[in-house]
Protein backbone atom coordinates (compact mmCIF):
# COMPACT_ATOMS: atom_id res chain seq x y z
CA UNK A 1 0.00 0.00 0.00
CA UNK A 2 1.49 3.34 -0.98
CA UNK A 3 2.27 5.42 2.03
CA UNK A 4 1.68 9.15 1.92
CA UNK A 5 4.78 10.82 3.27
CA UNK A 6 5.38 14.53 3.32
CA UNK A 7 8.34 15.65 1.25
CA UNK A 8 11.03 17.80 2.76
CA UNK A 9 13.51 19.59 0.52
CA UNK A 10 17.06 19.41 1.80
CA UNK A 11 20.49 19.95 0.25
CA UNK A 12 23.26 17.42 0.66
CA UNK A 13 26.63 18.43 -0.78
CA UNK A 14 25.01 20.96 -3.15
CA UNK A 15 22.53 18.36 -4.44
CA UNK A 16 18.90 19.18 -3.76
CA UNK A 17 16.89 16.12 -2.78
CA UNK A 18 13.36 15.39 -1.63
CA UNK A 19 13.64 13.66 1.70
CA UNK A 20 10.67 12.23 3.60
CA UNK A 21 9.45 13.61 6.86
CA UNK A 22 10.73 11.52 9.75
CA UNK A 23 13.66 10.22 7.75
CA UNK A 24 17.25 10.53 8.92
CA UNK A 25 19.89 12.35 6.89
CA UNK A 26 21.62 9.03 6.30
CA UNK A 27 18.47 7.33 4.97
CA UNK A 28 17.71 10.23 2.64
CA UNK A 29 21.28 10.34 1.35
CA UNK A 30 21.35 6.59 0.74
CA UNK A 31 18.10 6.74 -1.26
CA UNK A 32 19.71 9.27 -3.58
CA UNK A 33 22.96 7.41 -3.87
CA UNK A 34 24.97 9.85 -1.78
CA UNK A 35 27.54 7.90 0.20
CA UNK A 36 27.97 8.65 3.88
CA UNK A 37 30.23 6.15 5.64
CA UNK A 38 28.67 4.38 8.63
CA UNK A 39 29.47 1.50 10.96
CA UNK A 40 26.92 0.86 13.68
CA UNK A 41 23.92 1.82 11.55
CA UNK A 42 22.21 -1.08 9.83
CA UNK A 43 19.09 -0.66 7.75
CA UNK A 44 16.20 -2.47 9.42
CA UNK A 45 17.54 -2.11 12.96
CA UNK A 46 16.94 0.62 15.50
CA UNK A 47 19.36 3.54 15.45
CA UNK A 48 22.18 3.30 17.96
CA UNK A 49 24.41 6.29 17.10
CA UNK A 50 27.49 4.85 18.78
CA UNK A 51 30.29 4.91 16.23
CA UNK A 52 30.01 8.52 15.01
CA UNK A 53 31.59 7.58 11.68
CA UNK A 54 28.56 9.04 9.88
CA UNK A 55 29.00 12.56 11.29
CA UNK A 56 27.96 15.34 8.92
CA UNK A 57 27.94 19.10 9.13
CA UNK A 58 24.62 20.92 9.15
CA UNK A 59 24.67 24.60 8.18
CA UNK A 60 24.02 26.82 11.20
CA UNK A 61 25.06 24.18 13.70
CA UNK A 62 28.50 24.22 15.20
CA UNK A 63 28.64 20.58 16.28
CA UNK A 64 28.84 17.78 13.72
CA UNK A 65 25.71 15.59 13.79
CA UNK A 66 25.44 11.83 13.41
CA UNK A 67 23.63 11.41 10.07
CA UNK A 68 21.97 8.17 11.24
CA UNK A 69 20.34 9.81 14.27
CA UNK A 70 19.53 13.26 12.89
CA UNK A 71 16.15 13.72 11.26
CA UNK A 72 15.80 15.87 8.16
CA UNK A 73 14.41 19.37 8.59
CA UNK A 74 13.06 21.66 5.85
CA UNK A 75 15.81 23.56 3.97
CA UNK A 76 18.56 21.75 5.81
CA UNK A 77 22.00 22.14 4.24
CA UNK A 78 24.24 19.17 4.88
CA UNK A 79 27.90 18.64 4.06
CA UNK A 80 29.16 15.08 4.25
CA UNK A 81 32.84 15.22 3.44
CA UNK A 82 34.58 18.38 4.65
CA UNK A 83 38.19 18.33 5.80
CA UNK A 84 37.01 18.60 9.39
CA UNK A 85 34.72 15.58 9.05
CA UNK A 86 37.45 13.56 7.34
CA UNK A 87 39.74 14.33 10.25
CA UNK A 88 37.05 13.33 12.77
CA UNK A 89 36.38 10.05 11.00
CA UNK A 90 40.03 9.23 10.80
CA UNK A 91 40.50 9.86 14.49
CA UNK A 92 37.52 7.69 15.36
CA UNK A 93 38.86 4.87 13.20
CA UNK A 94 42.31 5.15 14.74
CA UNK A 95 40.78 4.97 18.21
CA UNK A 96 38.83 1.86 17.21
CA UNK A 97 41.97 0.21 15.89
CA UNK A 98 43.96 1.19 18.99
CA UNK A 99 41.23 -0.08 21.33
CA UNK A 100 40.99 -3.72 20.23
CA UNK A 101 43.32 -6.17 18.52
CA UNK A 102 42.60 -5.64 14.84
CA UNK A 103 45.13 -7.61 12.86
CA UNK A 104 43.85 -7.85 9.30
CA UNK A 105 46.53 -10.29 8.14
CA UNK A 106 45.20 -13.08 10.35
CA UNK A 107 41.51 -12.11 10.33
CA UNK A 108 38.71 -14.23 8.88
CA UNK A 109 37.10 -11.06 7.55
CA UNK A 110 40.17 -9.72 5.77
CA UNK A 111 38.82 -8.22 2.54
CA UNK A 112 35.23 -8.42 3.80
CA UNK A 113 35.39 -6.05 6.72
CA UNK A 114 33.54 -2.79 7.14
CA UNK A 115 36.11 -1.48 9.62
CA UNK A 116 38.85 -2.23 7.11
CA UNK A 117 36.84 -0.65 4.27
CA UNK A 118 36.20 2.52 6.26
CA UNK A 119 39.88 2.78 7.17
CA UNK A 120 40.92 2.37 3.52
CA UNK A 121 38.36 4.97 2.42
CA UNK A 122 39.57 7.40 5.06
CA UNK A 123 43.17 6.86 4.01
CA UNK A 124 44.08 5.68 7.49
CA UNK A 125 47.54 4.20 7.01
CA UNK A 126 48.75 4.37 10.60
CA UNK A 127 47.46 4.87 14.14
CA UNK A 128 48.66 7.86 16.15
CA UNK A 129 47.56 6.41 19.49
CA UNK A 130 49.19 3.74 21.62
CA UNK A 131 47.64 0.34 21.05
CA UNK A 132 45.92 -0.96 24.17
CA UNK A 133 46.56 -4.60 23.21
CA UNK A 134 43.83 -5.88 25.54
CA UNK A 135 43.76 -9.51 26.61
CA UNK A 136 40.41 -10.86 25.45
CA UNK A 137 39.76 -14.59 25.36
CA UNK A 138 38.07 -15.97 22.22
CA UNK A 139 34.77 -17.82 22.73
CA UNK A 140 34.65 -20.82 20.39
CA UNK A 141 32.24 -22.85 22.53
CA UNK A 142 29.29 -22.51 20.17
CA UNK A 143 29.03 -25.52 17.86
CA UNK A 144 28.43 -23.35 14.85
CA UNK A 145 29.92 -19.90 15.44
CA UNK A 146 32.91 -18.21 17.04
CA UNK A 147 33.01 -14.91 18.90
CA UNK A 148 36.36 -13.15 18.89
CA UNK A 149 36.04 -10.05 21.11
CA UNK A 150 39.47 -8.86 19.95
CA UNK A 151 37.86 -7.79 16.69
CA UNK A 152 34.68 -6.43 18.27
CA UNK A 153 34.01 -2.69 18.09
CA UNK A 154 30.82 -2.88 20.25
CA UNK A 155 28.65 -1.49 17.45
CA UNK A 156 25.80 -3.57 18.98
CA UNK A 157 24.44 -4.69 15.63
CA UNK A 158 24.38 -8.27 16.91
CA UNK A 159 22.65 -7.14 20.12
CA UNK A 160 19.97 -5.32 18.15
CA UNK A 161 19.46 -7.95 15.45
CA UNK A 162 19.13 -10.68 18.09
CA UNK A 163 16.64 -8.62 20.08
CA UNK A 164 14.66 -6.91 17.35
CA UNK A 165 14.67 -9.39 14.47
CA UNK A 166 15.23 -12.83 16.04
CA UNK A 167 13.65 -11.88 19.37
CA UNK A 168 16.03 -13.99 21.43
CA UNK A 169 18.15 -11.22 23.02
CA UNK A 170 21.08 -13.50 23.68
CA UNK A 171 23.60 -10.66 23.39
CA UNK A 172 23.99 -7.51 25.40
CA UNK A 173 26.68 -5.03 26.37
CA UNK A 174 28.11 -5.39 29.85
CA UNK A 175 30.18 -2.92 31.84
CA UNK A 176 30.92 0.56 30.58
CA UNK A 177 33.49 2.84 28.98
CA UNK A 178 36.57 1.15 27.58
CA UNK A 179 35.62 -1.99 29.46
CA UNK A 180 32.31 -2.35 27.65
CA UNK A 181 32.09 -5.78 26.07
CA UNK A 182 29.54 -8.18 24.68
CA UNK A 183 28.08 -10.93 26.81
CA UNK A 184 25.83 -13.86 26.08
CA UNK A 185 23.16 -14.27 28.77
CA UNK A 186 24.86 -14.07 32.16
CA UNK A 187 28.33 -14.00 30.71
CA UNK A 188 28.67 -17.76 30.33
CA UNK A 189 30.27 -19.21 27.20
CA UNK A 190 28.08 -18.78 24.11
CA UNK A 191 27.84 -22.54 23.66
CA UNK A 192 26.16 -22.85 27.05
CA UNK A 193 23.54 -20.17 26.46
CA UNK A 194 20.08 -21.66 26.38
CA UNK A 195 18.38 -18.83 24.49
CA UNK A 196 20.53 -18.85 21.33
CA UNK A 197 18.55 -20.18 18.38
CA UNK A 198 21.61 -20.71 16.17
CA UNK A 199 20.00 -18.43 13.57
CA UNK A 200 23.26 -16.69 12.63
CA UNK A 201 21.80 -13.24 12.10
CA UNK A 202 24.40 -11.80 14.48
CA UNK A 203 27.12 -13.32 12.30
CA UNK A 204 25.47 -11.94 9.17
CA UNK A 205 25.25 -8.45 10.68
CA UNK A 206 28.73 -8.21 12.19
CA UNK A 207 30.77 -5.50 10.44
CA UNK A 208 34.11 -7.04 11.41
CA UNK A 209 35.54 -10.50 11.99
CA UNK A 210 34.29 -10.65 15.57
CA UNK A 211 31.54 -13.14 14.72
CA UNK A 212 32.16 -15.89 12.19
CA UNK A 213 31.42 -19.49 11.33
CA UNK A 214 33.45 -22.26 12.93
CA UNK A 215 36.16 -23.44 10.58
CA UNK A 216 36.57 -20.18 8.68
CA UNK A 217 40.10 -19.40 7.57
CA UNK A 218 41.71 -16.03 6.88
CA UNK A 219 39.59 -13.93 4.53
CA UNK A 220 36.88 -16.61 4.25
CA UNK A 221 34.19 -14.95 6.33
CA UNK A 222 31.56 -13.08 4.32
CA UNK A 223 28.83 -11.20 6.15
CA UNK A 224 25.38 -10.39 4.79
CA UNK A 225 24.40 -7.08 6.37
CA UNK A 226 21.56 -6.57 3.85
CA UNK A 227 19.84 -9.68 5.21
CA UNK A 228 18.27 -7.63 7.99
CA UNK A 229 16.73 -5.05 5.65
CA UNK A 230 15.39 -7.91 3.51
CA UNK A 231 13.78 -9.64 6.48
CA UNK A 232 12.22 -6.42 7.73
CA UNK A 233 10.83 -5.60 4.28
CA UNK A 234 9.50 -9.12 3.86
CA UNK A 235 7.71 -9.04 7.19
CA UNK A 236 6.28 -5.60 6.55
CA UNK A 237 5.16 -6.04 2.94
CA UNK A 238 4.75 -9.82 2.82
CA UNK A 239 6.88 -9.81 -0.28
CA UNK A 240 9.72 -12.25 -0.43
CA UNK A 241 12.35 -12.40 -3.11
CA UNK A 242 15.40 -14.56 -3.57
CA UNK A 243 18.37 -13.47 -1.51
CA UNK A 244 21.03 -11.65 -3.48
CA UNK A 245 23.80 -13.07 -1.36
CA UNK A 246 23.87 -15.23 1.72
CA UNK A 247 26.70 -15.77 4.17
CA UNK A 248 28.83 -18.66 3.02
CA UNK A 249 30.00 -21.10 5.60
CA UNK A 250 32.07 -24.24 5.35
CA UNK A 251 29.36 -26.06 7.33
CA UNK A 252 26.59 -25.07 4.97
CA UNK A 253 28.54 -26.37 2.04
CA UNK A 254 28.73 -29.73 3.78
CA UNK A 255 24.95 -29.79 4.12
CA UNK A 256 25.50 -29.57 7.86
CA UNK A 257 23.18 -26.61 8.34
CA UNK A 258 20.35 -26.71 10.82
Amino acid at each position, binding site marked *: MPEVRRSIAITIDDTEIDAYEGESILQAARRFGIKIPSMCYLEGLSVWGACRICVVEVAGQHQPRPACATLVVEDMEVRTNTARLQSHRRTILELLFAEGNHVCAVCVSNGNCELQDRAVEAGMDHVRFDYRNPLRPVDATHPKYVFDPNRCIVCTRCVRVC*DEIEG*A*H*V*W*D*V*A*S*RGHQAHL*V*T*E*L*GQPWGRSS*SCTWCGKCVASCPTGALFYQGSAVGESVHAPDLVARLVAARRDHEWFPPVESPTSPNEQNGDDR
Partner: protein
Amino acid sequence: MAEALHPSGDDRFAVLDKHLKRTHHAQDQLIETLHVAQEVFGYLSDDILMYVARALLLPPSMVLGVATFYHLFNFEAQGEHACSVCTGTACFVKGADAIVAAVRDGYAVAPGATSEDGFLTLRTARCLGSCGLAPVVVIDGNVAGHQDARSTLELIRAQARIPEEVN
Protein backbone atom coordinates in the same frame (compact mmCIF):
# COMPACT_ATOMS: atom_id res chain seq x y z
CA MET B 1 9.90 -21.15 64.39
CA ALA B 2 9.83 -20.87 60.61
CA GLU B 3 6.29 -20.11 59.59
CA ALA B 4 6.11 -19.79 55.83
CA LEU B 5 9.48 -20.66 54.41
CA HIS B 6 10.10 -19.60 50.82
CA PRO B 7 9.86 -22.60 48.47
CA SER B 8 13.57 -22.24 47.75
CA GLY B 9 14.33 -22.88 51.41
CA ASP B 10 15.96 -19.45 51.62
CA ASP B 11 13.71 -16.88 53.22
CA ARG B 12 15.69 -14.02 51.77
CA PHE B 13 13.88 -14.70 48.51
CA ALA B 14 10.64 -13.91 50.31
CA VAL B 15 11.88 -10.35 50.85
CA LEU B 16 12.74 -10.07 47.18
CA ASP B 17 9.38 -11.56 46.21
CA LYS B 18 7.60 -9.02 48.38
CA HIS B 19 9.31 -6.19 46.52
CA LEU B 20 8.50 -7.80 43.17
CA LYS B 21 4.86 -8.11 44.15
CA ARG B 22 4.70 -4.52 45.33
CA THR B 23 6.13 -3.28 42.02
CA HIS B 24 3.87 -5.63 40.04
CA HIS B 25 6.91 -7.28 38.44
CA ALA B 26 7.32 -4.13 36.33
CA GLN B 27 10.22 -4.40 33.93
CA ASP B 28 11.15 -0.75 34.38
CA GLN B 29 11.77 -1.54 38.06
CA LEU B 30 14.86 -3.55 37.14
CA ILE B 31 17.39 -1.27 38.85
CA GLU B 32 15.21 -0.95 41.97
CA THR B 33 14.85 -4.70 42.08
CA LEU B 34 18.60 -5.21 41.74
CA HIS B 35 19.14 -2.79 44.64
CA VAL B 36 16.72 -4.75 46.82
CA ALA B 37 18.34 -8.02 45.79
CA GLN B 38 21.78 -6.71 46.68
CA GLU B 39 20.52 -5.39 50.00
CA VAL B 40 19.06 -8.76 50.86
CA PHE B 41 21.83 -11.03 49.57
CA GLY B 42 24.83 -8.73 49.92
CA TYR B 43 25.89 -9.20 46.33
CA LEU B 44 24.46 -10.25 42.98
CA SER B 45 25.38 -13.81 42.14
CA ASP B 46 24.51 -15.36 38.79
CA ASP B 47 21.65 -17.20 40.48
CA ILE B 48 20.17 -13.96 41.81
CA LEU B 49 20.53 -12.23 38.45
CA MET B 50 18.75 -15.14 36.78
CA TYR B 51 16.04 -15.05 39.44
CA VAL B 52 15.47 -11.34 38.77
CA ALA B 53 15.52 -11.88 35.00
CA ARG B 54 12.88 -14.61 35.27
CA ALA B 55 10.76 -12.63 37.70
CA LEU B 56 10.70 -9.58 35.40
CA LEU B 57 10.57 -11.69 32.21
CA LEU B 58 13.68 -9.91 30.92
CA PRO B 59 16.56 -11.42 28.93
CA PRO B 60 19.40 -12.39 31.30
CA SER B 61 21.98 -10.56 29.17
CA MET B 62 20.05 -7.31 29.61
CA VAL B 63 19.93 -7.78 33.40
CA LEU B 64 23.66 -8.44 33.48
CA GLY B 65 24.28 -5.49 31.17
CA VAL B 66 22.38 -3.09 33.43
CA ALA B 67 23.91 -4.49 36.63
CA THR B 68 27.50 -4.26 35.36
CA PHE B 69 26.96 -0.70 34.11
CA TYR B 70 26.64 0.64 37.65
CA HIS B 71 29.50 0.64 40.13
CA LEU B 72 27.19 0.23 43.11
CA PHE B 73 26.39 -3.37 42.27
CA ASN B 74 28.74 -6.07 43.55
CA PHE B 75 29.15 -9.50 41.99
CA GLU B 76 31.27 -11.05 44.69
CA ALA B 77 30.62 -11.72 48.35
CA GLN B 78 31.39 -8.63 50.43
CA GLY B 79 33.13 -8.55 53.75
CA GLU B 80 31.35 -8.25 57.09
CA HIS B 81 32.50 -4.65 57.19
CA ALA B 82 33.23 -2.20 54.42
CA CYS B 83 35.75 0.61 54.39
CA SER B 84 35.70 3.10 51.53
CA VAL B 85 38.51 5.58 51.28
CA CYS B 86 37.99 8.66 49.13
CA THR B 87 40.90 9.15 46.75
CA GLY B 88 39.56 12.32 45.14
CA THR B 89 41.89 15.26 44.66
CA ALA B 90 41.38 16.92 48.06
CA CYS B 91 41.58 13.64 49.99
CA PHE B 92 44.59 12.56 47.97
CA VAL B 93 46.42 15.78 48.80
CA LYS B 94 45.58 15.28 52.48
CA GLY B 95 47.10 11.80 52.47
CA ALA B 96 44.38 9.34 51.46
CA ASP B 97 47.00 7.01 49.99
CA ALA B 98 48.53 6.54 53.47
CA ILE B 99 45.10 5.49 54.77
CA VAL B 100 44.63 3.03 51.91
CA ALA B 101 48.11 1.60 52.52
CA ALA B 102 47.50 1.26 56.26
CA VAL B 103 44.20 -0.59 55.82
CA ARG B 104 45.67 -2.70 53.04
CA ASP B 105 48.60 -3.80 55.19
CA GLY B 106 46.64 -4.01 58.43
CA TYR B 107 43.99 -6.36 57.04
CA ALA B 108 45.87 -7.91 54.10
CA VAL B 109 43.28 -6.72 51.61
CA ALA B 110 43.84 -5.15 48.19
CA PRO B 111 41.77 -2.08 47.29
CA GLY B 112 38.54 -3.27 45.66
CA ALA B 113 38.81 -6.71 47.27
CA THR B 114 37.70 -8.49 50.43
CA SER B 115 40.07 -9.92 53.03
CA GLU B 116 40.43 -13.67 52.97
CA ASP B 117 38.65 -14.15 56.30
CA GLY B 118 35.69 -12.17 54.92
CA PHE B 119 36.06 -9.52 57.59
CA LEU B 120 36.68 -6.37 55.58
CA THR B 121 36.09 -5.06 52.07
CA LEU B 122 38.36 -2.16 51.11
CA ARG B 123 37.16 0.20 48.42
CA THR B 124 38.48 3.40 46.97
CA ALA B 125 36.04 6.06 45.83
CA ARG B 126 36.71 8.76 43.26
CA CYS B 127 35.18 11.65 45.17
CA LEU B 128 32.47 11.61 47.78
CA GLY B 129 31.77 15.32 47.41
CA SER B 130 32.75 16.12 51.00
CA CYS B 131 36.09 17.67 50.16
CA GLY B 132 35.86 20.00 53.17
CA LEU B 133 36.16 16.90 55.38
CA ALA B 134 39.21 15.56 53.56
CA PRO B 135 40.48 12.95 53.95
CA VAL B 136 37.14 11.14 54.11
CA VAL B 137 36.52 7.48 54.87
CA VAL B 138 33.18 5.69 54.98
CA ILE B 139 32.94 2.74 57.31
CA ASP B 140 29.81 0.62 57.02
CA GLY B 141 27.94 3.60 55.64
CA ASN B 142 29.10 6.07 58.31
CA VAL B 143 31.03 9.02 56.93
CA ALA B 144 34.03 10.13 58.93
CA GLY B 145 36.05 13.21 58.02
CA HIS B 146 39.56 14.44 58.82
CA GLN B 147 40.94 10.91 59.17
CA ASP B 148 44.44 9.58 59.12
CA ALA B 149 45.81 6.05 58.99
CA ARG B 150 45.67 5.49 62.76
CA SER B 151 42.21 6.91 63.35
CA THR B 152 40.83 4.91 60.41
CA LEU B 153 42.16 1.64 61.80
CA GLU B 154 40.69 2.60 65.18
CA LEU B 155 37.30 3.27 63.55
CA ILE B 156 37.34 -0.13 61.85
CA ARG B 157 38.17 -1.80 65.17
CA ALA B 158 35.37 0.12 66.90
CA GLN B 159 32.94 -0.87 64.15
CA ALA B 160 33.91 -4.52 64.57
CA ARG B 161 32.92 -4.38 68.23
CA ILE B 162 29.33 -3.40 67.43
CA PRO B 163 27.11 -6.48 67.15
CA GLU B 164 25.65 -6.88 63.68
CA GLU B 165 22.04 -6.63 64.87
CA VAL B 166 22.50 -2.97 65.76
CA ASN B 167 22.66 -0.99 62.57
